[in-house]
């Protein structure tokens, strides 16, 4: 479906324009190490839901729906201080100065999360990116909108302060059934996954209906798999 191509295009655009400030992944990770997050914040882009309004669309043609994607944001930060001074037999005044200049992890994590929100928001709301529909070409979707951005309370335990949050992207898509004959799904679309090259220029990432279903996979195969 078209929402898969849009998610891939959003992911590819964030990857291409992150400038090394964050890592973009195209799925919801259920467990992340705060050690990794200290090296690089993680932005997860994944499909959340589609609402098909019966008033928009036709029974046998296009289906017009509002798609919501989640953009999960995760960062972690340790404290910062002048370790080099503290390590070299410092005087009283040098210790006091170094301690006073230390920046608590809580402050660093809070500022880093806000900066991550700013970076991601600026890429997603860039008029050039939206105008080109993230490389899919004008008209691929409409009504692009970041409806909300949330920040959770910092995690209060651990060697680093972790802050998580998320943004909701909504947009309107035309979903067009590509075949009148139902084709059995195979659970995960490996062909589509293989077609998503994160390093590719987002302009080249387009929707190709041929990649979303395997012509060799038929309902007969499904029957054999379930033992009918």
């Amino acid at each position, binding site marked *: 479906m078209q929402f898969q191509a849009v998610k891939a295009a959003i992911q590819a655009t964030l990857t291409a324009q992150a400038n090394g400030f964050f890592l973009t992944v195209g799925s*919801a*990770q*259920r*467990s*992340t*190490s*705060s*050690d990794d*997050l200290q090296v690089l914040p993680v932005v*997860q882009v994944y499909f959340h839901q589609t609402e098909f309004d019966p008033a928009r669309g036709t029974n046998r043609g296009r289906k017009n729906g509002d798609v919501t994607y989640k953009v*999960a944001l*995760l960062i*972690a930060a*340790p*404290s*910062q*201080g*002048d*370790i*080099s001074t*503290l390590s070299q037999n410092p*005087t*009283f*005044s*040098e*210790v*006091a100065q*170094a*301690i*006073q*200049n*230390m*920046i*608590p*992890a*809580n402050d660093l994590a809070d500022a880093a999360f806000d900066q991550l929100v700013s970076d991601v928001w600026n890429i997603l709301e860039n008029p050039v990116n939206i105008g080109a529909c993230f490389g899919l070409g004008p008209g691929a979707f409409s009504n692009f909108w970041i409806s909300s951005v949330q920040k*959770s*309370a*910092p*995690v*209060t*335990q*651990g*060697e*680093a*302060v*972790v*802050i*998580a*949050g*998320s943004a909701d992207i909504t947009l309107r898509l035309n979903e067009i059934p590509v075949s009148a004959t139902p084709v059995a799904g195979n659970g995960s679309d490996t062909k589509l996954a293989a077609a998503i090259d994160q390093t590719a220029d987002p302009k080249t990432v387009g929707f190709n209906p041929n990649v979303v279903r395997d012509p060799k996979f038929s309902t007969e195969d499904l029957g054999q798999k379930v033992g009918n």
Partner: protein
Amino acid sequence: MSVAERALMENENADFVEGEFSLPVTLFGPDGNTYPLSATIFRNARSERPTDDGVIVRETIVVLRITSAPTRLTTGALVGDKWAIYMPVDALGQNYAWYALDSSRASMFDDTLGHVRLYPTKLIQTPVKS
């Protein structure tokens, strides 16, 4: 509790916190003083869920004996104070790392047992601005 019982408990406390399982730690206080101490260090990993996503965080807890710890640290007046801790990160005390303590991580006092538990965050070198 009698004075003798308290003295006995304090001895056991010293044996537990500063005994054979203890490791040497150095506290650097906001007053510029350096405090070499013995402490028991606990390190573990815990799973936190700030949102739907789980995050595995490494946690280090430093247990000090209140009677040995700096008064400024144990009076509870941590607001605005920052401390640096230099301590081992392995059981044999061969590798050391820097940690920081500030008022965003409240210390836990157990006055009955005479312990104070510190929850420091890791301290890294401030990037040098060019």
